[in-house]
């Protein structure tokens, strides 16, 4: 059901908020044993919220825009009074005394928290397998990963365990799981959405965004969470357009750039390539113009990212010292030993690996060679985009070179997992808004995602083009059968 329909049904008395929440809690109950998308389900709170909304309805009071909409939240966004673990032993008992700005805005708009979703530990990973509390499965095929790091949120939306969800995207952590799970996932312009209350991973790249089953719902959520926040000095002070009102605009005359380098990747599956090209051709048949563009420095995106992101992470994660909050190792003889042991015992191996990479890249003698060099290449990648946007309005690429891979596939080779992020990372490095939406299925019935990237603060265009494609392509109407996808 679309949020807009739900709003009408609540208003018209066809359904109550309690019935709606009970439906989703029932759905969670029936599929969670297989999926493990949630780390915690906040059933009591959700039902209490629903009753308040039903009371407002009974009294004839006007309802806020997202009244009763059940939402799941990635467990790296602070929720006051509700454990926020980042899927880490380090924060296993952390109950934040404050609420993140994005979730605060959702609750003010009437949305209802259904629970906190699983992620790769501290959002570091592409499969949701590095969670300290067990992996999440892909609803299309439980032997496959849901993608990551926001795999719990993507799987929950795909399996009908919520209407929409929030995730965070540092190098593709919203778009890649959206692609693997056959849902819509949006990474906004860096600064469009406040990061206050998002547990920091790589501060110059992190951005919060929505997951939904369709573009219109994603637009509704994005509208509510966007906008300036005095608590985040990197948030952009610009007005937020009504993303919903421009969805029906025509794509006639729109110039779509196909990034040559993205279609020439040797790891790109032929099924993904064909499906994404078919999506581009459909947009062309709707009146858009297809142009090939070149972004030669794209192929250096991963190397750039795996210097910058771990460097920032190593600094951000220095705060976990076993003193003020988080895990503490007992029995150490002195403070230094206590801190080093707490971090060795509290962080999982992927987090430790990235802290080590970052510390190495920033350590004496290497700072210039790695960190500064990566920042310079980051500039070159930004320039590639600037040049591309001189001749096109929007860029189109596959979201991921493959469909969802099998659990455990990259377990012994971290670099092979990192290389799978090559198509999503450049938008983070340049701060550009990007989204993934379903465009087809492979021979095994797994969803394929197409990525759209637009210029700074052009989320309206991004959502408009995605919506036009979605309406014409009807990908989900022709989906293969999957037991866990309603």
């Amino acid at each position: 059901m679309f949020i807009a329909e739900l709003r009408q049904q609540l208003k018209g008395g066809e359904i109550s908020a309690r019935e709606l929440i009970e439906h989703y809690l029932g759905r969670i109950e029936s599929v969670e044993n297989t999926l493990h998308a949630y780390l915690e389900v906040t059933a009591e709170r959700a039902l209490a919220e629903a009753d308040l909304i039903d009371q407002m309805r009974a009294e004839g009071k006007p309802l806020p825009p997202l009244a009763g909409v059940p939402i799941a939240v990635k467990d790296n966004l602070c929720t006051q009074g509700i454990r926020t673990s980042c899927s880490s032993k380090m924060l296993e008992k952390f109950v934040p005394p404050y609420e993140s700005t994005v979730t605060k805005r959702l609750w003010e708009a009437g949305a209802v928290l259904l629970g906190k979703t699983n992620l790769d530990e501290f959002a570091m990973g592409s499969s949701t397998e590095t969670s300290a509390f067990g992996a999440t499965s892909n609803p299309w095929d439980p032997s496959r990963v849901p993608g990551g790091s926001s795999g719990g949120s993507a799987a929950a939306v795909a399996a009908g365990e919520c209407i929409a969800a929030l995730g965070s995207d540092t190098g593709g952590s919203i778009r890649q799981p959206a692609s693997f799970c056959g849902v819509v996932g949006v990474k906004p312009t860096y600064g469009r959405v406040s990061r206050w209350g998002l547990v920091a991973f790589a501060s110059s790249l992190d951005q919060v965004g929505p997951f939904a089953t369709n573009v219109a719902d994603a637009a509704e959520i994005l509208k509510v969470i966007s906008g300036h926040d005095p608590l985040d000095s990197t948030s952009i002070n610009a007005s937020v357009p009504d993303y919903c009102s421009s969805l029906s605009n025509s794509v006639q005359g729109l110039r779509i750039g196909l990034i040559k380098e993205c279609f020439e990747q040797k790891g790109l599956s032929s099924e993904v390539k064909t499906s994404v090209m078919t999506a581009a051709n459909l947009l062309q048949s709707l009146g858009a113009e297809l142009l090939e563009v070149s972004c030669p420095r794209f192929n250096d995106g991963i190397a750039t990212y795996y210097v910058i992101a771990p460097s920032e992470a190593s600094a951000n994660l220095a705060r976990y010292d076993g003193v003020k909050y988080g895990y503490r190792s007992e029995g150490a003889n002195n403070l230094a030993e206590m801190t080093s042991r707490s971090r060795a015992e509290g962080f999982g191996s992927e987090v430790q690996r990235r802290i080590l990479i970052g510390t190495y890249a920033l350590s004496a003698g290497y700072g210039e060679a790695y960190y500064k060099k990566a920042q310079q290449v980051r500039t070159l990648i930004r320039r590639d985009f600037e040049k591309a946007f001189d001749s096109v309005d929007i860029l189109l690429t596959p979201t991921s070179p493959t469909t969802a891979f099998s659990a455990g596939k990259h377990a012994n080779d971290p670099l092979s997992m990192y290389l799978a992020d090559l198509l999503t990372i450049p938008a983070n490095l340049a701060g550009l808004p990007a989204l993934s939406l379903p465009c087809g299925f492979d021979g095994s019935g797994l969803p394929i995602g197409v990525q759209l990237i637009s210029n700074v603060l052009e989320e309206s265009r991004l959502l408009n083009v995605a919506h036009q494609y979605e309406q014409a392509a009807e990908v989900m109407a022709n989906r293969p059968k999957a037991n866990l996808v309603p």
Partner: protein
Amino acid sequence: MKKISAEDVRKVAELARLDLPDQDISTYACQLEKIITYVAQLEKIETVDVIPTTRALEVLNVTRDDNVKSTSVREELLELAPHREGDFFRVPQILAD
């Protein structure tokens, strides 16, 4: 190929305050060697006079009025400490014997 020895990893782990067992050190050494060798491809890129990007979008001198505000979460914050003693965080001894 960049060589990363167990000794290099041990030094970095010490800087990062990670007390790792020897077995982990040697695993990380192999993995870091592969990763650092991969990212070293950046060395070949010409970047003379290229200004480094420190943030995705340039935001300059964000300031606010320097007003004192009180918050009421002091007790909740202290309660999050693994060991608390009154209004203090309790830790093991700071100086070695």
